[in-house]
């Protein structure tokens, strides 16, 4: 079809435009709740771009993990904090040079990577014969990259346990119930019948 509309290109620029604008919104909006919601939009648009690459497993996992779980907790925390905006905004300009430096460094790293490996011209392998990249990804992760994968999982587990044990304080004054004891309770523990003589007047 020579005259066909380049749908993929249009959709790509649409989604990357939304992602870029939303990313700008994250750092410019005055309300932290808006920032979190813009970040959600950025993640979602990036997931859509990955879908265009037919990387459906990665795209859906991005939505599931970041949008569905991580950002919900972020939003949760941001909403409960009473953040003083003027104080936060005052240092904005002084951080600018550092921010620009980091941005330039990251961009340079990306460009070098693309230039050195020629990733731009490389044809990516999408999936196996059925076009399912979930199966391909799973097979790679559990055969070729089994050890790195398992080690990464273990490190995450250690990090979770460490974070909980560092922040969890057992306060003696906290009152709580033990449901298994509540279930097992019997009549003698709760009720005491007293027999007494009838009193006069």
């Amino acid at each position: 079809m020579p005259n066909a509309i380049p749908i993929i290109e249009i959709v790509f620029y649409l989604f990357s435009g939304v992602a870029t604008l939303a990313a700008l919104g994250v750092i410019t909006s005055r309300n932290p709740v808006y920032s979190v919601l813009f970040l959600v939009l950025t993640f979602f648009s990036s997931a859509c771009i990955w879908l265009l690459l037919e990387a459906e497993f990665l795209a859906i996992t991005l939505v599931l993990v970041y949008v569905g779980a991580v950002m919900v907790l972020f939003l949760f925390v941001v909403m409960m904090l009473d953040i003083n905006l003027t104080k936060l905004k005052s240092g904005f300009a002084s951080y600018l040079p550092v921010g620009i430096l980091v941005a330039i460094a990251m961009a340079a790293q990306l460009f070098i990577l693309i230039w050195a490996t020629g990733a731009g011209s490389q044809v990516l392998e999408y999936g196996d014969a059925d076009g399912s990249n979930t199966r391909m990804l799973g097979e790679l992760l559990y055969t070729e990259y089994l050890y790195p994968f398992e080690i990464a999982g273990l490190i995450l587990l250690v990090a979770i346990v460490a974070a909980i044990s560092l922040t969890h304080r057992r306060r003696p004054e906290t009152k709580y119930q033990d449901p298994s004891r509540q279930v097992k309770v019997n009549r003698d523990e709760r009720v005491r019948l007293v027999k007494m003589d009838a009193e006069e007047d």
Partner: protein
Amino acid sequence: MIEQLTVLAWTVTKISFLILIPLILAVAYFTFAERKVIGYMQSRVGPNRVGPWGLFQPFADVFKLLFKEIIIPAQANKVLFVLAPMMTLIPAFTAWAVIPASDKLVLADIDAGLLYILAMTSMGVYGVIVGGWASNSKYAFLGALRSAAQIVSYEMAMGFALVGVIILSGSLNISNIVEAQSGGLFSWFWLPLLPLFVIYFISGVAETNRAPFDVAEGESEIVAGFHVDYSGAAFALYFLAEYANMILISALASLLFMGGWMSPFAGIPIIAEPGPHWFFIKMFSFMFLFLWFRATFPRYRYDQIMRLGWKVFIPITIVWILVAGIFRVTGLYGG
């Protein structure tokens, strides 16, 4: 150009006639069924005035809600207040794209269908949190926080329960999962995955904020929770999303654990034929369970909901994932 526009028009038509209109009608009559069923369970007759046997009651409700004024509280965040109900409704509807009613009757037969559903249902919580926050009311905010914590907790148990299904069927595609259960009543996944099946459905009830886990609404403690400030059409959207999600959970439970469109009577002629009617019978039974729960159980206390999710369900699911793996490796089920 013309070709692409035709494809687009055809897809939009399919979306509206296969999903949108049936789903909205199903939700309308589900609310009617809820009032009737709970009515009879409590020795009442339920709505019976509008139309024959009260059958037009849902339409009366819908028109009443649509013509009511949407009141936006003065101190509310107006943009988010209006956006929030849509943020709940859109994921609730988009998840339906991959639900098959039979091996041919499906809008999008995608490979990662189950993951897609998990991703979509996990996004519905934003509407609840944002709505509760934007209302700028203590009760709404409390409801939103409760609901967020509850949904995030039960999503874990739900996801783990689905891992068992994925292990036994070896696929993320919902049609393939149903095909993997082909056979009679005893070749469906509810039998080898019985604990996961029970946990899945209970987590589904908790995910949709329904009784006995409806602390996010908790009308006796926090009035109506996150949607206390919503009225008219905005409230109707929340309502629509909640019921669409309930139907979705019922559809998933019947597809993933009860053999979808497979007939329970394998080997007997005529009634052993698979077909969409079996799927709908199963789905309606699960939907009935939602109503039965609501009429039966008192509301859970909040800390016990959390305990049930984290300390009871998640350990059981992790153990049963191992058991499912053993089933698969030894060839008892699946593979």
